[in-house]
């Protein structure tokens, strides 16, 4: 399931792109922060800016100069022809001018290369820096942040948002500046050459802008329709792949194939329309632009005829038209993409601005290895300020004791553990480890003393051995195998293709939940912590293996305090202290026999499981 969540996140991102142009809430502030984020690259930006100015200037000047050359040559050619002679270029007759034009172009090329080469690493450096900032930020965020936000959304900040930003900034900033310079420069030149032709040009540009806008509304609609069909097919593929065993077991292959073909057919129709709309806009615009050019050519040709325009100017004018027509139609698009990348950046900054966990006490106490006294005293806690879950929880555990926490789903069992590990901060009250308030310890020191196995197993892409040795990277293979044997994973590891060197990918999807739980137990065995916490660590493991593990654990954890959350009461009857929780509070506590004798809620629960 976790896998789909990520796709959902990515999907949402695509949707956003389609459903409207994202705009930053506070562009000014974002740009200011951006400026700070690139403070190590200011010099580079300065050089780029200078280069852009030169490049733009030269690009505007070059056609002017070539117009001059053409006129010059044409004049000489006409003169030569009039005298019945042939003309050829020499250094004096046009050669030096052409050479000079060559120099202009070489310089243009140089500046273009300089700026795009410098910018090639600009955005990636920025992304790299922000990614690292986020990654260290993630370690300082309170866990409540991760409860509130889907993994896909956070992932999207670090990948899609930053990739979009870097794509837009890498080429976008340059293009935006040079385009603007080019358009302005070209228009100035064109107005200088001929006002009438320039007005004609602008007229056609205006038409094509209007057409673009009208068509893009339609394009958006067909893109939306396609997106719907994509979602439909995506959902169907995900569902059918997940449920394929059932499809096969019930002989539903034909049926499901038919439904899939229908969905892909709908998608094909929708995407044909959408693709056509998107692709068709270019030829459409080009047609309008061409009509403009034809009008200019006819009018200009007439002027040539009258002698009111020189051939060089005519040619230069065309070059300016070429230089500014496409940038003008692209300008709106560029501004949009800049805006949406600023919006992406803003999301990244807002993640970096999230409230952090306290950095810990100024002069922390340290516990090298806890003896195992754990005390909760009048602990009050709620995940959100409005709703207090835990009113007043108190209990004490002595070294070597096994504390069992039982109760129905949502009773607050895991919350108790979360507080002990200091994943969340208390509203009031105290938790003591060996008599020291855990607030006086650093997070790292506190957690060093605990070994925890969670209900929801976490494995990373790496070998089985690496996964087991996560808490003790310098463990030898013998130690790893010993831990694996204790956790009863040795047998099935041998049934895997490369034994302990089998790489687990896709979140260990080739393992059953029970097997994954056993692996995470082996991980904790290897660490040999002072206090052990098992949060439904064996919920998907069968009872017999559970007991075997329990035995191994008992040997390993002798004289160590342990906390066990369990569904099956059979595994905890031997606990020294049982805490029965309900609605966040401990309603009964004591040993199995005393609680059973008391005949309260625990006794009832116990009897219901073994009736």
């Amino acid at each position, binding site marked *: 399931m976790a896998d789909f969540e990520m796709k959902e996140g990515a999907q949402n991102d695509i949707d956003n792109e389609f459903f409207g142009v994202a705009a930053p809430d506070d562009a000014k502030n974002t740009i200011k922060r951006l400026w700070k984020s690139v403070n190590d690259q200011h010099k580079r930006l300065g050089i780029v800016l200078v280069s852009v100015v030169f490049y733009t200037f030269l690009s505007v000047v070059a056609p002017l100069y070539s117009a001059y050359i053409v006129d010059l040559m044409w004049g000489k050619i006409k003169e030569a022809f009039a005298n019945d002679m042939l003309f050829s270029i020499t250094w004096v007759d046009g050669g030096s001018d052409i050479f000079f034009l060559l120099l202009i172009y070489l310089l243009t090329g140089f500046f273009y290369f300089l700026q795009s080469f410098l910018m090639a690493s600009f955005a990636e450096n920025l992304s790299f820096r922000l990614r690292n900032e986020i990654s260290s930020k993630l370690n300082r965020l309170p866990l409540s942040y991760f409860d509130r936000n889907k993994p896909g959304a956070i992932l999207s900040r670090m990948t899609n948002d930053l990739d979009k930003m870097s794509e837009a900034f890498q080429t976008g900033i340059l293009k935006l500046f040079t385009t603007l310079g080019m358009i302005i420069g070209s228009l100035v030149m064109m107005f200088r050459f001929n006002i009438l032709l320039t007005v004609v040009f602008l007229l056609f540009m205006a038409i094509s802008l209007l057409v673009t806008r009208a068509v893009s509304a339609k394009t958006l609609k067909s893109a939306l329709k396609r997106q719907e069909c994509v979602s439909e097919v*995506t*959902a169907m593929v995900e569902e059918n792949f997940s449920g394929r065993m059932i499809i*096969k077991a019930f002989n539903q292959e034909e049926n499901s194939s038919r439904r899939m073909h229908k969905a892909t057919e709908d*998608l094909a129709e929708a995407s044909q329309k959408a693709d056509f709309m998107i692709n068709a806009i270019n*030829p459409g615009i080009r047609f309008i632009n061409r009509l403009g050019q034809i009008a200019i050519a006819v009018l200009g*040709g*007439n002027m040539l005829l009258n002698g009111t325009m020189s051939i060089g100017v005519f040619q230069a004018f065309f070059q300016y038209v070429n230089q500014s027509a496409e940038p003008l139609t692209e300008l709106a698009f560029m501004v949009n993409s800049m805006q949406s990348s600023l919006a992406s950046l803003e999301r990244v900054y807002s993640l970096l601005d999230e409230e952090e966990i306290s950095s810990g006490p100024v002069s922390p106490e340290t516990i090298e290895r806890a003896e195992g006294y754990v005390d909760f005293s009048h602990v009050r806690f709620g995940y959100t300020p409005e709703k207090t879950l835990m009113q007043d929880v108190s209990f004490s555990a002595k070294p070597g004791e096994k504390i069992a926490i039982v109760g129905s789903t949502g009773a607050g069992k895991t919350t108790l553990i979360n507080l002990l590990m200091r994943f969340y901060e208390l509203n009031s009250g105290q938790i003591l480890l060996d008599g020291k308030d855990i607030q006086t310890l650093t997070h790292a020191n506190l957690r060093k003393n605990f070994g925890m196995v969670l209900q929801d197993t976490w494995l990373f892409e790496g070998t089985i051995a690496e996964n087991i040795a996560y808490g003790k990277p310098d463990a030898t293979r013998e130690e790893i195998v010993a831990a694996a044997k204790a956790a009863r994973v040795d047998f099935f590891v041998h049934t895997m293709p490369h034994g302990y060197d089998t790489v687990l990918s896709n979140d260990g999807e080739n393992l059953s939940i029970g097997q994954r739980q056993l692996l995470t137990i082996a991980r904790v065995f290897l660490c040999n912590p002072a206090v052990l916490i098992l949060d439904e660590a064996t919920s998907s493991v069968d009872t017999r*293996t559970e007991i075997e593990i329990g035995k191994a654990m008992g040997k390993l954890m002798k004289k160590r305090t342990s906390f066990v959350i369990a569904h099956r009461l*059979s595994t905890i009857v031997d606990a020294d202290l049982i805490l029965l929780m309900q609605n966040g509070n401990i309603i009964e506590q004591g040993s199995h026999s005393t609680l059973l004798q008391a005949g309260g809620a625990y006794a009832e629960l116990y009897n219901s499981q073994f009736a």
Partner: protein
Amino acid sequence: MKLILKFIKPYRKLMVFVLLVMVLDVAGGLLIPTITADIINYGIGGGSLDYILRQGLFMIAVSLLTSFGALAGSYLSASLSAKLGRDIRNALYDKSLTFSSSDMEKFGTGSMITRTLNDVNVVQQSVIMVIQMILPVPVVCVMGIVMAFHIDLMMGWILSGVTLAILIMALCVIKKAAPLFRRLQRFLDRMNIVIRENITGVRVIRAFNKEPFEEKRMSGVFGNYREVSVKVNRLFAGLESTALLVINLIIVGILYVGGNRTGAGFMKIGDIIALSEYAILIMFYLIMAQMVMVMLPRALVCIGRIQEVLDLEPEIKDGGATVPMIAGGTDVIRFENVSFCFSDADENTLSELSFICKRGQTTAIIGSTGSGKSTIAKLILRFHDVSQGSIKLNDMDIGNMKQSQLREHISYVPQKAWLFSGTIAHNLEFGNKDASGEEMQHILSVAQSEFVTELPDGLTAHVAQGGTNFSGGQKQRLSIARALMKKADLYVFDDSFSALDFKTDAALRKALKKQTRDSAVLIIAQRISTIMNADQIIVLENGRIAGMGTHQSLMKQCPVYQDIAKSQMKGEEVRG
């Protein structure tokens, strides 16, 4: 590549049309500057306004034709790519239906989804790009050069030379870029995985104090990605700059040679403009083609991944039995010395199993996690094939049957209760598509799913994908109901009672007994209480049978069974 050709084959005619309209588009693009040059030549040569206007009209006609070509090209290529995408997706999906579990595991569900959706998408886009950006290249080059030759022989040669030079340069860049892009993709995937792991594993990371380690690990991955990205960007920066420079150099060159040739009377001055435009057009198409080519390796990877799926020979093939099966015998399923080993694994998952599931009887399988219990169910359904020995359904080897024929006789409740999106009735119809409302109600009551009648929409109540809008116990009961809808010789319950409380479990088994009177029942379970009353219990340990018999006999003879029982019962109450 073969893949694309195979899928494009049905649309050959469409392809030809696309190419034709493309030629129209390109030809128009080259004609416009030619006419412009003509206007100039006449304009300065003292022609008439009439002529210029005529040429203007001619240009409009050409533009119309060109735009028509371009539009038709867009339409046809959109159509082609849409059809291609549809066909490949259908082929992939239909292929996946023939896969066994281990076939599917070769790719992984996540990857199969990616292949069916994203990879096909990349292929589609690439096909459009190839059609629009690469196919016109030879047309542009040839036509441009021909027209240059038409203007002036020498200019023709120059343009041919330049085109050839750029072509060679482009090929070099592509060769260099291809491996770079493959690496970029790899690092991108890796980055996604590592970030994801850090988000989902935040508790574990903090519990183990691994924050600094993870930060370093991530930074390493980010660094790799940056390094390759910058390389790619620089390559593109170099490519663009060179392209720009070359265009400008050509313009200068044409100016110089054009001036001389005009001066020598071989061509007219206006032709300089036409030639420059030809050169720019050729360059433009070549550069665009180059950009597309650079992206193509990624598409090739996707094509390869699709091909992999389509080429995989399904592990499990239909048998070609001609003899009809005689149903109704007492031995519904017989295991004869069955062993099973995953390919590449050192040890057997199941070894030398022999047992019989009889009609009217309940057989139960109990054992530790990883003892191979669920694999037995999968073997019966032929989601895997046995490595040794044979399984017989109604005295016929299941390997000799069609898979659909085998599964017709078996109804199955999987370990993970999975419901399909739609309605409850829609899910129940899986078992029997012609079932009436009463039948459904009856089965629901057998499966202890009366809660359905209390829902506002009853049988037509909405089910979310996977059944996530129902609790674990409700999902299990509904998936049991779905299986009971089907009349079968054998009902297989793979750990299907685990989420039920003891009372419901007991009630359900009682109702079940009546419902499945004429069939064999196989229950795989972890709870002794669930299987205590079975006619036959098989105890599985490390893939071998550690004991077989009734609860009473096993409690006496089988130490493994005793262990399991002890672990689940209050010690003093274990009944012998």
